[in-house]
């Protein structure tokens, strides 16, 4: 539960309550959305959020007051998801990231796999298309999109939350965006945009 090499803090009960209420609780809606987008189930999201906040309180002395509480909480939730939830559910397909990085290094391949979507077709997607497209991605790809586009984390923060190098964050995001575009392009085709 340690966040970097922060020395163990010593807080009074009152200070713990203040940190919990003022620094942790304001992120509960983002945490719930993250939990929901990972599990795709509202009850599981509820359990994950509750479990995360209880762990956060239990390990509050690993958190340094006034630092990045949001990233710290997201990391706990992500670890709980991997350690507790993912083990219980069907193990998703593993992505071969070595292969992904090789892909990323070839601009020629990149051009070929990037669908030529049009802004007009995206503007007509008023329903659940984007949400369904996001949910259909492998959880590791979905996660980087959520952290970057919905929560506006920096590469360095994402690397810490996910325990991966910054270069991997970048290549995973790049690949995730291309996969999302492929999904959206197939939705656009069903909506009648043949040259989506």
């Amino acid at each position, binding site marked *: 539960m340690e966040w970097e090499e922060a020395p163990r803090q010593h807080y009074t009960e009152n200070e713990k309550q203040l940190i919990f209420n003022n620094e942790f609780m304001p992120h509960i809606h983002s945490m719930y959305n993250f939990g929901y987008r990972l599990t795709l189930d509202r009850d599981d999201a509820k359990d994950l959020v509750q479990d995360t906040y209880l762990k956060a309180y239990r390990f509050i002395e690993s958190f340094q007051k006034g630092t990045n509480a949001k990233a710290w909480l997201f990391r706990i939730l992500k670890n709980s998801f991997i350690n507790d939830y993912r083990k219980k559910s069907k193990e998703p397909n593993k992505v071969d990231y070595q292969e992904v990085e090789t892909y990323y290094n070839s601009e020629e391949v990149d051009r070929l796999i990037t669908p030529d979507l*049009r802004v007009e077709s995206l503007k007509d997607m008023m329903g659940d298309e*984007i949400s369904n497209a996001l949910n259909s991605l492998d959880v590791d790809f979905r996660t980087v999109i959520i952290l970057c586009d919905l929560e506006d984390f920096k590469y360095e923060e994402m690397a810490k939350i996910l325990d991966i190098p910054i270069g991997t964050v970048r290549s995973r995001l790049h690949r995730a965006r291309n996969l999302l575009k492929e999904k959206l392009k197939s939705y656009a085709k069903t909506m009648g945009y043949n040259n989506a």
Partner: protein
Amino acid sequence: MATPTNPFIQPDGKKPTCMEMLQLIIDNQVTEEQRLYFSQHMGHCLPCYKKYNVDMAIKELLQSKCCGGNCPDDIVAEIKLKINSMTA
């Protein structure tokens, strides 16, 4: 008029490709100076202009449709109750 220095150039002198600049922009990992430089760059780079518009439209769709509403009130109440029982 002198061409402005590309603020995306790395300290080792490596010049970024259009794709690399675009990714930093879409991922919102840039300074204001880099953002300004890229918007000028798009004025004479049609592939960047097109890709930027599509990628930003997707990002805006994600932000408007996937932020998922509020956490139910009962979770907040339940968490607070459990925390209080831990400290009691």
